[in-house]
């Protein structure tokens, strides 16, 4: 040891040391006090605040979609329901090898091989814990297959959910419509809080126009999640505190339609293999009894989800199965407007009961050479207004057309609801067109085109030229004829029902402005003539109506087809087929106490009385209970 170093004083050193231990202990105690003070602050004074934040951390609110309302026909038969279906799901983070898994599922025919790239893409975007739907609806065989194979597929499972189902399929496709996957553009229009958790929304038909009634209101429930947002079963973790109260969803209302499934089915069968539409309604209430557009499609494809190729096939079908001809198809009404024009002529004095014309099958305006032909080349001989309707004499109407004048034609046809949407509770209706001088001035740019020609009035008198009407409009006009001028807004939904209370609300008929005549006997004239169309000795549709046990009134029509779309390819037979005239028929029955009014259009059906009239008759027979012999 260095002898020069100061001598160590053991006792004073120990004293110094003890002094420093005391000093540092005091300092340490202060530090410890800080920590304890902090703990007291956090755990005692701010406890409520942090307890709440801890609750907010792990409780997520999950929307519970409501059960969509059911749809029934007028006799309570189910048209749209919700069926449990098993959906195949994949949780990406639990799947060891995505490619192999999808390939194996495809090999078992649980998914479409063509969907693999899309499903792979879906599985790789989005949260890894969120299930991806591989197959929205497994059939029984697939469920059995997967149940056996399940242990081999980690991360893949099936889950029940409710799927919209239309047991009557294509019979009601155009009336009821369908639901489809909720799109982002749908969401912009809808209340997001009401649709939280909902995956489908009504796209067409009743499903669309009554969406707000059918849908109901979403509820919500509280779920416990971990830091990564994955759901944790609250029971298994024994998290002590009770979760806040859940809110049950409010189911959507059930709808009762005025549609009669039997009529729908009958009309659909009658139109099988053709393109066309049938609309039937109760003239005294506006209730639509049948709304059929052919060809139809299976709405379940939309509800369940279909493959790209299936959708393309539907879209590219030249028969346009997705097109609702009943409300959106506009056709030249042809001779079906003759009863209404006869009323106009009688009311305006353009003709009277005594006026007779000898029809040679051809008509020319004074001082012109253009020959307007009758549908019957040899002519009808001497006809009065009754005969002109019953035999559908074109020349008679050609003659009086310019005496009525296009604007008065427009006036009377408009009173029957032509040229404007009817107000049916299905969206997408087309207004059709009833021309007038005013209309022509507005419709054309070129001043030369804006002038109305007498010849245009002539062809308008047989429902050709510019005139267009939908089958629905023809049905409502027919109903107005049947009721002698009393008109109701057509309506498909007759009542809705709260599924919880069973309380029903009836839709009240909406009465429109009557068609009022100066001389009510003109109704008798026209309706009598329409009766002769079907049951008179020379009526155009006497083959259909003669011998029926009830009195019916009708009017046939034939509409020329003007053009075939240029870009579509047809073989020659096709072209010929598609250039044939459209066949139309309107009818109501019984004449003295009308219960049903019908409009039928068969595209390229050639003959109104030959092709369309039997369909109208069958629908009336069925509805009036005379169907045993007819069908």
């Amino acid at each position, binding site marked *: 040891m260095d002898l020069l170093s100061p001598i160590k004083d053991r006792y004073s050193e120990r004293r110094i040391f003890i002094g420093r231990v005391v000093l540092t202990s005091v300092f*340490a105690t202060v530090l*410890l006090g800080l920590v304890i003070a902090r703990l007291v602050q956090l755990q005692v004074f701010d406890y409520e605040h942090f307890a709440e934040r801890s609750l907010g951390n792990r409780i997520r609110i999950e929307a519970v979609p409501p059960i969509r309302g059911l749809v029934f026909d007028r006799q309570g038969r189910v048209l749209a329901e919700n069926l449990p279906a098993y959906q195949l799901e994949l949780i990406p983070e639990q799947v060891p090898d995505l490619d192999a898994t999808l390939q194996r599922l495809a090999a078992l025919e649980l998914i479409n091989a063509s969907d693999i790239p899309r499903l792979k893409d879906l599985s790789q975007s989005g949260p890894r814990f969120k299930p991806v739907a591989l197959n929205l609806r497994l059939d029984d065989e697939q469920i059995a297959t997967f149940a056996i194979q399940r242990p081999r597929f980690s991360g893949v499972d099936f889950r029940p959910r409710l799927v919209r189902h239309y047991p009557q399929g294509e019979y009601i496709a155009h009336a009821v419509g369908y639901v489809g996957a909720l799109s982002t553009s749908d969401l912009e229009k809808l209340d997001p809080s009401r649709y939280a958790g909902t995956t489908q929304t009504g796209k067409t038909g009743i499903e669309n126009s009554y969406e707000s009634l059918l849908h109901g209101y979403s509820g919500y429930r509280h779920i416990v999640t971990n830091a990564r947002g994955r759901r944790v079963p609250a029971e298994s973790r024994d998290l002590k505190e009770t979760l806040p109260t859940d809110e049950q969803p409010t189911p959507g209302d059930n709808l009762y339609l005025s549609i009669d499934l039997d009529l729908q089915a009958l009309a659909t069968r009658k139109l099988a293999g053709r393109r066309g539409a049938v609309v039937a309604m109760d003239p005294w209430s506006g209730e639509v009894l049948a709304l059929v557009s052919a060809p139809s499609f299976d709405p379940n494809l939309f509800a369940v989800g279909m493959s790209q190729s299936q959708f393309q096939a539907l879209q590219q079908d030249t028969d346009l199965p997705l097109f609702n001809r009943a409300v959106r198809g506009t056709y030249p009404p042809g001779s079906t407007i003759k009863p209404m024009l006869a009323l106009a002529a009688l009311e305006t004095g353009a003709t009277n009961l005594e006026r007779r014309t000898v029809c040679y099958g051809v008509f020319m305006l004074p001082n012109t050479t253009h020959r307007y032909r009758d549908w019957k080349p040899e002519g009808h001989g001497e006809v009065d207004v009754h005969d002109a309707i019953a035999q559908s004499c074109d020349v008679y109407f050609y003659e009086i057309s310019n005496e009525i004048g296009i604007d008065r034609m427009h006036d009377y046809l408009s009173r029957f609801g032509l040229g404007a949407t009817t107000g049916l509770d299905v969206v997408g209706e087309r207004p059709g067109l009833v021309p007038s001088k005013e209309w022509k001035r507005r419709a054309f740019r070129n001043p030369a085109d804006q002038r109305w020609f007498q010849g245009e009035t002539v062809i308008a008198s047989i429902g050709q030229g510019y005139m267009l009407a939908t089958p629905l409009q023809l049905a409502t006009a027919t109903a107005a004829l049947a009721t002698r001028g009393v008109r109701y807004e057509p309506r498909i939904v007759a009542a809705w029902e709260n599924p919880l209370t069973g309380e029903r609300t009836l839709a009240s008929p909406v009465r429109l402005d009557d068609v009022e005549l100066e001389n009510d006997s003109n109704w008798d004239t026209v309706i009598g003539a329409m009766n002769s169309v079907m049951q008179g000795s020379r009526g155009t549709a006497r083959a259909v109506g003669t011998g029926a046990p009830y009195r019916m009134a009708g009017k046939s029509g034939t509409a020329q087809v003007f053009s075939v779309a240029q870009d579509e390819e047809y073989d020659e037979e096709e072209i010929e087929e598609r250039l044939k005239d459209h066949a139309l028929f309107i009818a109501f029955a019984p004449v003295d106490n009308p219960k049903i009014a019908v409009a039928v259009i068969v595209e390229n059906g050639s003959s109104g009385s030959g092709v369309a009239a039997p369909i109208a008759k069958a629908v009336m027979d069925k509805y009036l209970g005379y169907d045993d012999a007819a069908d």
Partner: protein
Amino acid sequence: MPLTETQRVLTAKAAPLNDFTRALRRLHLDGPLLGGLLLICGFGLVVLYSAVGENMRLWLNQVVRLGVALVAMLVAAQISPEFLRRWTPWAYLGGLVLLALVLVTGEVGQGARRWLDLGIRFQPSEIMKLAVPMMAAWYLHDRPIPPRFSQIMIIALIIVAPTVLIARQPDLGTALLIAASGIIVIILAGLSIRLMLALAVLSVPGAYVLWNFMQDYQKQRVLTLLDADSDPLGAGYNIIQSKIAIGSGGLFGKGWTNGSQAQLEFLPERDTDFIFAVMGEELGLLGVLSLLALYMFVVARGLYIAIQAHSSYARLLAGSISLTFFVYVFVNTAMVTGLVPVVGIPLPLVSFGGTSMVTLMAGFGILMSIHTHRKLLPQ
């Protein structure tokens, strides 16, 4: 007749030792210190079981590590303080060499170079946790205290060399702890209060220099502390979730294994640096205060041993080990409660992980050795 003071002392000493105390003596263990440590470890294992999500495999892993650490303590307790003192310079120099080696050839993990593989994988910085206070105490052992300024400078060098090497790894948390353990030796040796105050004033520009030396993530931690809520999903997330966990525990806690913050993984690093928050959430204020009381008992016993020690070396070393242990506890709990920036320092003897536990226990072994190798009562 009342006993004289001498008689009383002699009578007390003559009281027969029971078998248990005798066995402890023979193993050079200190009963109160051992009891306190075992209580902390037991408490820690209970909390850890919940913090690892009731994962039995991980939990048993920790039990094994604890066993290893206890063996290290037992071994360290057998080494006499005199022997330890003589070998101190070699331990220190060896540690420095290994630290230098780490910077050159060490294994990289999580962006830092901390591990060395010489047959067994270990962090040389762990050696330094003991070697630095040992070396400082060694230097002061045969010098009179309070030390002169020049001597303080030499000790400062002894401290700074390994601190810089460790900070370069980078492992700022450990570097600061090691520096603290050396500084504590100087303070205990009687550093003048005036000098201490002067250093405290100087620390302001020092902090500025340190700030410039800090890595971005380290700066971020400081900034986060100052305003955690400014970045609730980023750097502030840990502190916010930790505060929520502790605060929502309240007085009595949510119950063992029932902490939603911990069990649903909102709390980051729940089984390591933030295990104190798990305890706060599940066992409440009463739980964490119980643990703090145990820690304080161990620190107090360590300081008692230091005061009772017979040599300057033993005294300074024992005091440093005890107070450094307190610094561990303080820095971790202050960090978890949001009082100081997030530095990666585990809660001693409780957090999951083995290396630091072995060093800690070896340190307590040294304390026991110091206490049990005394020559009893100078006759």
